[in-house]
């Protein structure tokens, strides 16, 4: 599966503006937009996809340029492969600092209004955040869809797990999930008879196995209930060994690199340990794989059904005052990422889909003056809160090898304790303390500069220090709170004059109670492993949160959700269960922003499943 060569041609913005035959105009080329574009093209619809980034990474040269940029970056943060583009700016975590009470920091793309400073990121390039995602693809649990009913916390979805299950399978097919049903059948998760994932599960890392050796067969007691511990494999959106039993024995054909032959690249994960920020071989799914299929579909006269206009930043949703429908999008098309020169074009279509991620979609709505009847656009912002715990194992574990994460401790994703405190899932990071401390570079600096090691002692010191690293990244549930939100202010704009998102966030007490327990839980695990706990949280850390006399450095999870929440009426939500706007019948707001809760599942699989649902609804609407 390759991008057709004509898809690399530059689409003329004037031709786009003059076109009157788009059935669907989609903002954003991430996984949400890609799935809807592909579904629409399969039904013979004309689709325009607008992408704020340059689109240069569609070509192999462009993709490899990202890798070279990553290699060349002195600070290898999770956006380091992606060049600065002021016209489509994105948050970059190394730029953050702690806020004083009442302070606002507008020095970064997301204006931090506090009190909590979030280092959450998303990626504004072709492929969206699937260009840098880690690709863990757990499903949400059945109980996650009814957390208000079950635990008195958060909101119930207007959909049950059963209504989403089939779309989960479609999403697993599209992404190409590697997992084994027997590994994922914990906490009451069920799969249809005979179901297998497209590819077999990736093996646990040697580090995972060493951790499991220390905890398997042990348990923890939480509010009088016993939870057994073990390291379980995560389902992964990256290519493994195809399962011949998939699809009733028809098997599964993985999609590798989409701009060179997959015999050479991407057919199977090679263990580059670099899922975040960029898989060098495209073994990890990115939405270009879905768009490659969409770009190949032609209409009756042979013309491609799906067009991509890059360097096109949607800046206003225009509403027809009589019908309440969206009549057009105003789009700023820039000529060069190094220059703020742009022209504004107006794009027309029958249906409009905003698929720009939870923050950018809310930003576009708010900048168009569209708060919705419920007033909830931009509110209920959610993102998983991460609490990092790091230790040195007593034995060499071969850290820094594998995919970014293969296994974790996930048995506390659900239980009656959720009436009181947040559930969590823990992933074991095969790249050691990197996220917490900047390892292994930080270790090298310490050993050379502070411990005065060189030669053999340095080599031995690195083995002792790096190959034994264990990081437990605790991903905590965060419930919707209306005051956690994105707003806009005309005084904060970007290079094109678009208003930038302002983030106001307080980590909910429910989450912090879970974090406090997670810290104790991690200490218990380290004690069972005989591991030296090196965890410390600095008061000056930008994400430092005090809770009940202790302090914790909370990290963002890049799992943004809630800003155009889904519900049952136009007064309690922005979109209905098909992600259609209650107020504007030809407008769909899709992606994590529609999710009423996020449980302890990384959001991509669920939001992908939701887009299959929306795609069907759009086609019904057009017919």
């Amino acid at each position: 599966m390759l991008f057709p060569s004509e898809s690399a041609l530059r689409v003329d913005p004037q031709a786009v503006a003059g076109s009157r035959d788009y059935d669907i105009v989609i903002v954003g080329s991430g996984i949400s937009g890609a799935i809807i574009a592909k579904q629409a093209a399969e039904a013979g619809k004309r689709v325009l996809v607008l992408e704020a980034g340059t689109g240069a990474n569609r070509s192999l040269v462009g993709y490899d340029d990202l890798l070279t940029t990553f290699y060349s970056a002195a600070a290898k943060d999770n956006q380091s492969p992606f060049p600065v583009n002021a016209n489509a700016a994105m948050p970059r975590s190394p730029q953050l600092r702690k806020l004083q009470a009442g302070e606002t920091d507008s020095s970064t793309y997301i204006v931090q209004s506090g009190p909590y400073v979030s280092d959450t990121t998303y990626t504004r390039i072709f492929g969206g955040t699937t260009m840098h995602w880690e690709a863990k693809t757990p499903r949400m649990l059945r109980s996650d869809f009814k957390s208000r009913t079950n635990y008195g916390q958060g909101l119930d979805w207007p959909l049950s797990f059963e209504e989403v299950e089939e779309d989960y399978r479609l999403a697993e097919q599209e992404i190409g999930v590697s997992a084994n049903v027997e590994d994922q059948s914990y906490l009451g998760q069920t799969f249809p008879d005979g179901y297998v994932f497209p590819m077999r599960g990736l093996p646990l890392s040697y580090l995972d196995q060493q951790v499991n050796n220390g905890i398997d067969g042990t348990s923890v007691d939480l509010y009088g209930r016993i939870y057994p511990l073990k390291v379980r494999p995560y389902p992964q959106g990256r290519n493994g060994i195809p399962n011949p039993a998939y699809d009733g024995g028809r098997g599964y054909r993985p999609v590798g690199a989409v701009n060179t032959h997959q015999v050479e690249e991407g057919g199977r994960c090679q263990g580059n340990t670099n899922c975040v920020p960029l898989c060098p071989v495209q073994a990890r799914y990115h939405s270009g794989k879905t768009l490659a299929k969409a770009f190949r579909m032609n209409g009756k006269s042979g013309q491609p059904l799906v067009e991509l206009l890059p360097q096109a930043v949607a800046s206003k949703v225009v509403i027809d005052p009589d019908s309440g429908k969206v009549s057009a999008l105003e789009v700023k098309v820039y000529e060069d990422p190094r220059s703020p020169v742009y022209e504004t074009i107006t794009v027309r279509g029958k249906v409009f889909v905003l698929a720009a991620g939870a923050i950018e979609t809310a930003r576009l709505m708010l900048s168009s003056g569209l708060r919705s009847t419920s007033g909830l656009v931009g509110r209920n912002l959610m993102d998983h809160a991460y609490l990092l715990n790091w230790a040195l194992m007593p034995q060499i574990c071969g850290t820094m090898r594998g995919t970014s994460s293969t296994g974790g401790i996930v048995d506390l994703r659900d239980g009656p304790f959720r009436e009181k405190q947040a559930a969590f899932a823990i992933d074991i990071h095969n790249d050691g303390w990197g996220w917490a401390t900047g390892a292994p570079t930080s270790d090298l600096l310490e050993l050379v500069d502070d411990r005065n090691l060189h030669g053999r002692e340095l080599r031995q010191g690195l083995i002792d220090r790096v190959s034994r690293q264990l990081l437990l990244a605790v991903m905590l549930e965060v419930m919707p709170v209306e005051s956690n939100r994105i707003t806009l202010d005309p005084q904060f704009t970007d290079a094109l004059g678009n208003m930038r998102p302002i983030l106001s966030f307080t980590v909910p007490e429910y989450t912090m109670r879970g974090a406090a327990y997670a810290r104790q839980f991690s200490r218990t695990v380290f004690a069972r492993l005989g591991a030296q706990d090196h965890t410390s949280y600095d008061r000056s850390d930008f994400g430092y949160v005090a809770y009940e006399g202790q302090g914790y450095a909370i990290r963002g999870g890049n799992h943004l959700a809630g800003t155009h929440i889904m519900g049952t009426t136009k007064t309690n939500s922005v979109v209905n269960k098909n992600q259609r706007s209650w107020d504007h019948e030809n407008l769909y707001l899709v992606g994590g922003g529609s999710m009423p809760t996020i449980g302890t599942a990384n959001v991509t699989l669920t939001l992908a499943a939701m887009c299959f649902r929306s795609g069907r609804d759009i086609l019904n609407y057009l017919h």
Partner: protein
Amino acid sequence: MSDRIETFLGLSVELTAFSRFDLLATGLAERYLGTLDKVVGGDTTNTLLAAFAALPPPGDGTRARALRATILGSELLGDVARSLIKLWYSGTWFELPYAWTQRFGAKPADATFVVSPDAYVEGLLWKAIGAHPAGAKAPGYGSWAYPPKIPAFPASDTKADAVSVHLQNVGIMS
């Protein structure tokens, strides 16, 4: 190969405990010598190389002490030698400490930078721990499930047992 690069390689072998063969295999030796010349200047680089050449010969019991006294513990050369170690291990030149700059003068090219994309990929750090640079030199599907192959390195005269003690936990990939 010039005497100068030979001396540079000899110094680098001593500082990194990687063999001449390993260092040449990175393809970066001349580039790193050139980085020294560019960042701290030819004079300081030559002073460093001369200090190395003046060490007592290998096998002489005083050599290690002399290396600490005249290079790693030298006010001028110590920080430069440490930046050179970090360069070989990571491919990144790390800016010299503020105190060094204050004393010996700011150098225009002295900033933290990755010397080249392949310098990152060839960092010795990854080889030292039996891993691979994140995003390159992938070891293959499923290799992560097995113990690391941490390469042995020459035992020192005085600590000949250190390597075998610490490597006993490390299996060979099956």
